[in-house]
């Protein structure tokens, strides 16, 4: 797998004229990589992910997966949203099966596949529960299982743990890390939480806002097997504070003049 983003610009037409959301974005994700993008609110993180997912089209520039240009959404790029996007009328099992069903996989195979991934995210006992009966963390685990069941080339995640409380978030991070190590999939994740990005990823793109550009690309070298312990290391805090400083800079540049304000 090779995700290649080259000189991507994205401009939106708004009432107040054109708005440049992303400018000259070039980045890559390789097979088995875990990459994070962090940035202030409005720096175009979600837009970037939507472009890769094929939900939006770039104004200029190209996005390709394994050399094939992205022309629309597809099952090869799984996505997990911050909002819980489970189908509320389906059981957990059916939610996980749904991607397979959309692609015409037989009921028997669907059931097997879904059960496998439900087992993997530790929710096999809840196969017949409805989404509303699950906690936030459990919902996101179902959403991840649903995306994985499609066996995508890359998993795109837009602040998947943003709505969870700190303790659940930690558990989910650990869980995701284990999953990634086990399956060897590629992940591109967006987050506000710098510690999360440092803890999880091998490489981080720091975006600055107005317009969204890549301010810095960092490699994180904290060894292969990570656990909570790593968070006590000074190296970890060093990474975090470096990134925070970068963000503070770009933040300070725009603070006091928030977008879309008029008295």
């Amino acid at each position, binding site marked *: 797998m090779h995700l290649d983003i080259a000189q991507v610009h994205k401009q939106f037409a708004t009432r107040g004229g054109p708005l440049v959301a992303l400018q000259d974005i070039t980045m890559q994700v390789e097979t088995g990589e875990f990459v994070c993008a962090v940035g202030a609110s409005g720096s175009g993180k979600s837009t970037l992910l*939507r472009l890769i*997912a*094929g*939900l939006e089209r770039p104004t200029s520039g190209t996005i390709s997966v394994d050399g094939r240009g992205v022309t*629309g*959404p*597809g*099952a090869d*790029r*799984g*996505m997990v*949203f911050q*909002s819980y*996007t489970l*189908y*509320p*009328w389906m059981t957990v099992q059916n939610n996980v099966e*749904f*991607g397979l069903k*959309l*692609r015409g996989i037989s009921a028997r195979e669907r059931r097997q596949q879904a059960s496998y991934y439900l087992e993997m995210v530790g929710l096999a006992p809840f196969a017949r529960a*409805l*989404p*509303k009966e699950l906690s936030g963390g459990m919902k996101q685990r179902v959403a991840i299982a*649903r*995306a994985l069941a*499609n066996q995508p080339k890359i998993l*795109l995640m837009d602040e998947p743990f943003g709505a969870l409380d700190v303790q659940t978030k930690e558990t989910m991070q650990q869980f995701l890390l284990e999953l990634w190590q086990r399956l060897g999939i590629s992940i591109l994740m967006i987050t506000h939480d710098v510690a999360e990005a440092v803890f999880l990823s091998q490489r981080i793109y720091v975006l600055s806002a107005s317009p969204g550009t890549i301010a810095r690309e960092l490699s994180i070298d904290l060894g292969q097997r990570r656990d909570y312990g790593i968070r006590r290391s000074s190296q970890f805090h060093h990474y975090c504070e470096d990134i925070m400083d970068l963000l503070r800079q770009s933040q300070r540049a725009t603070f006091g003049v928030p977008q879309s304000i008029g008295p």
Partner: protein
Amino acid sequence: MTTTDRSLQPTVFWRLAEGIPPGLSWLLMALSVLVPLLAWFLLSNAGVISPRFLPTPQMVVTALGRLWQQGYLGQDTFASFFRVMVGFLLAGLVAIPVGIAMGAFASIRALFEPIIGIVRYMPAPAFIPLLIIYLGLGETPKVALIFIGTVFYNILMIMDAVKFVPKDLIESTYTLGGNRRQVLFQVIVPYVVPNMLDTFRINVATSWNLVVVAELVAAEVGLGKRIAIAQKFFQTDEIFACLLVLGVIGFLLDLSLRLLLQTTCRWAID
């Protein structure tokens, strides 16, 4: 020092934006029906108002019994119920696809909303002469009247429901490999089922309002027709009896649609 001497809820009754104990709730709900009944009983039996103008509950029960014995009540109720159901089902059958298409596609919405906005304000009863001319005097014009009177409301309310389907849910489906057809039929449609049932629950009352007008068109039987006859000969007891039957049927219909919602859309109720 205790914390209960003076509190946020000085009275249980006037609790603002909060629940009340189930016992009190049931009591008040019973009073809701019993107090008006009692008031009616006392007022009509006081001998102040002529029973011609305000029949006593006893008279109305007698009238109900009479209508039942004469075999009218059963056949009238059935006839009206049939008309309402057919008219309303047809309205539903048209409103569901049109409403969903209007909610899902901005183009279809632009194409239908203005004309529906105008036609919706044309009173259904005003169409009676045209319906007689085009559709005759059988069941068709009666059913058509009920159809016209409810279809536009149904369409607009279903359209609104579709607009509230979360965008993330739709986009999730695309990223799972779904195409637009699948999104429409396998995501949008099931998502709005509870709203559709609720829409129908609200609008079926309008159908019952119209059946009375519809049955002015050469109806042989029907509760509306029965009211018209009772009205003709000034039999207030029978008018009250029919109104009572209509109210109870409506209430039961409301309850059963709520029940249907609760049983078929367990996911949508908390």
